[in-house]
């Protein structure tokens, strides 16, 4: 069970797809088979991340952001979740056809993940040090002493003061921000090439949020890691993301570089998200919201799934599923009127 120190599925030079993107998700379908019926959670999700790049995945709760991440990690609970189609390639290698054991070895080592609520995501009965060291001991075959030394270095790296003393403490003895830092340290233990951060700052104070985002950005740049940032916080996205993928009802409805998506969104849903952000310069006005609720995934509306909530909906929207409209510069929008939306807002 204990892996030898050289164990790595990534060091094989023949499989190093250096030319392509670090991670490529293509046409991914996932459904949840529940008692109430089949919920189509992912309906053809495609995105990619390059090394050293941050992709922000935006969307409301239930849009499939986290499920996509969990599918990439291979930590979906089956049942009820089943991958029914698509492909995930990491450094050119197809993951979905790999054995469970191979995928396990990739976790932490190739792709690591940090979670939203560090208090519940860390095991309450083990010290922070233990939880970092256990990967090093089991996956890298380090001795307890070596692993402890490395754990302290990692805590130093994420700027936890007094790392030497902190390594012996339990998660509940850390503050919220420190806990999230510890989790980041834990995810970096095996030097992953891709880090998936699932709403890493949602449970934190605004000031701490900024610190954590800065830390992530810095570490990403230093290590030339790919970073997938899952969030519903548009403020976080604006500052850190290179590219944005907007998800709705289990598909990417808009994709593009962060700057131009912010400046001129190409999908009414993105427009709605941006408008529902409070703005200081428009003080006193009523905050715009997207009317209605996200669709039930057991019964996704026909045509464009956003049409019941869309202010621009026409008859075509309920009849035809919109395809990707190429807006140039790598921008895509799944809206029948994408060009018009970009032009006129």
């Amino acid at each position: 069970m204990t892996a030898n120190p050289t164990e790595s599925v990534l060091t094989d030079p023949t499989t190093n797809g250096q030319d392509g993107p670090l991670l490529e998700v293509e046409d991914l379908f996932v459904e949840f088979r529940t008692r109430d019926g089949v919920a189509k959670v992912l309906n053809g999700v495609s995105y990619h991340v390059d090394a050293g790049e941050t992709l922000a995945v935006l969307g409301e709760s239930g849009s499939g952001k986290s499920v996509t991440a969990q599918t990439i990690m291979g930590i979906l609970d089956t049942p009820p979740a089943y991958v029914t189609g698509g492909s995930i390639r990491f450094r050119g290698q197809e993951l979905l056809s790999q054995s469970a054991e191979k995928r396990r070895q990739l976790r932490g080592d190739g792709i690591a993940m940090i979670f939203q609520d560090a208090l519940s995501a860390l095991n309450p009965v083990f010290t922070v040090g233990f939880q970092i060291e256990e990967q090093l001991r089991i996956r890298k075959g380090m001795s307890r002493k070596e692993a402890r030394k490395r754990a302290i270095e990692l805590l130093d790296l994420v700027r936890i003061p007094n790392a030497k003393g902190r390594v012996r403490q339990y998660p509940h003895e850390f503050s919220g921000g420190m806990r999230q830092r510890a989790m980041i340290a834990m995810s970096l233990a095996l030097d992953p090439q891709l880090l998936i951060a699932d709403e890493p700052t949602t449970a934190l104070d605004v000031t701490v949020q900024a610190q954590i985002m800065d830390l992530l950005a810095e570490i990403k740049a230093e290590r030339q890691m790919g970073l997938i940032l899952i969030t519903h916080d548009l403020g976080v996205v604006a500052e850190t993301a290179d590219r944005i993928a907007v998800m709705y009802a289990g598909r990417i409805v808009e994709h593009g570089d962060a700057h131009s998506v912010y400046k001129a969104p190409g999908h009414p849903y993105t427009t709605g998200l941006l408008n529902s952000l409070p703005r200081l310069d428009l003080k006193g006005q009523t905050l715009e919201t997207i009317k209605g609720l996200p669709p039930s995934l057991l019964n996704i509306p026909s045509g464009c799934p956003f049409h019941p909530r869309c202010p621009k909906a026409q008859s075509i929207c309920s009849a035809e599923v919109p395809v990707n409209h190429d807006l140039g510069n790598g921008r895509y929008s799944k809206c029948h009127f994408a060009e018009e939306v970009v032009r006129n807002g």
Partner: protein
Amino acid sequence: MGRYVIRRLLQLIPVFIGTTFLVYVLVWALPGDPFAGMCKSVCPPEFRQAMIEKYNLDENIFVQYFAYLGNLLQGDFGVTYSDREVGMLIEDAAPVSLQLAAIAVGFEALIGISAGILTGLRGRGFLDNLVLVSTLVLTAFPVFVTGFIVQLVLGSGLGIIDLTVSSDPSFGELLAPGFVLGSLSMAYVARLTRTSIAENRRADFVRTAVAKGLPHRRVVGVHLLRNSMIPVITFLGTDLGSLMGGAIVTEGIFGINGVGGLVFDGILSKEGTVVTGVVMLLVIIFLVTNLLIDLLYAVLDPRIRYE
């Protein structure tokens, strides 16, 4: 932590005095004549007078109790009406009862926890139903039914065990009675473990452990089990204390001369010294195991700190 332990130990004193006094009074208040049956027909008045004087029976109940307590604190458990040392009686009975209770808890832990882990991990299915139904059956049966069934099947039927144990029973002889004694709580342990595992299986920290790429065996064996065992271990510890004195029926079925039988006989023959002595011992054992469990709890779950 140290101050907490001292405070808990000091709490033992009032509880100790309270329980022993209550038991002493209760035995004293039982109707009937303690000397009936000691003589062939009716006891001669001289004998009665001698006995009453010897045991201070005409004194006030408080005087009697405090005289008893005073002796007790000097390590003297007193003598029975037939002049046998109560201390000796307890010394004879306690080890076998402790052994029996320990075996019972061992069975509870072994079978209960294994069944609980298996069903908790697998979720609904045939195995789950099997364990659920069989534990329900075990719980529904009174101990004497389970006892007689075990005696019948293993003893008379298969001849694996003797129907009753010898006067100084070995570990092997106590296995069958221990199983019977543990059968009630075994079902409870299985269900407690199952619930606890099923609850923690979907916990965020288990998902984190999986996401770290740890082998399945380690995720379950270290991260899941450690958290799920906290309530189970707490229960098992308390059960050890209550099973020590609560084995009257099991002891009766298998002819074990344990603490339970000692109390029962003591009550029948109105031997206040015996009943109080044994109950006091049980109370102390119960309180101390409870304290140990509370301390163990803090070790198992670092979020708990005693001030």
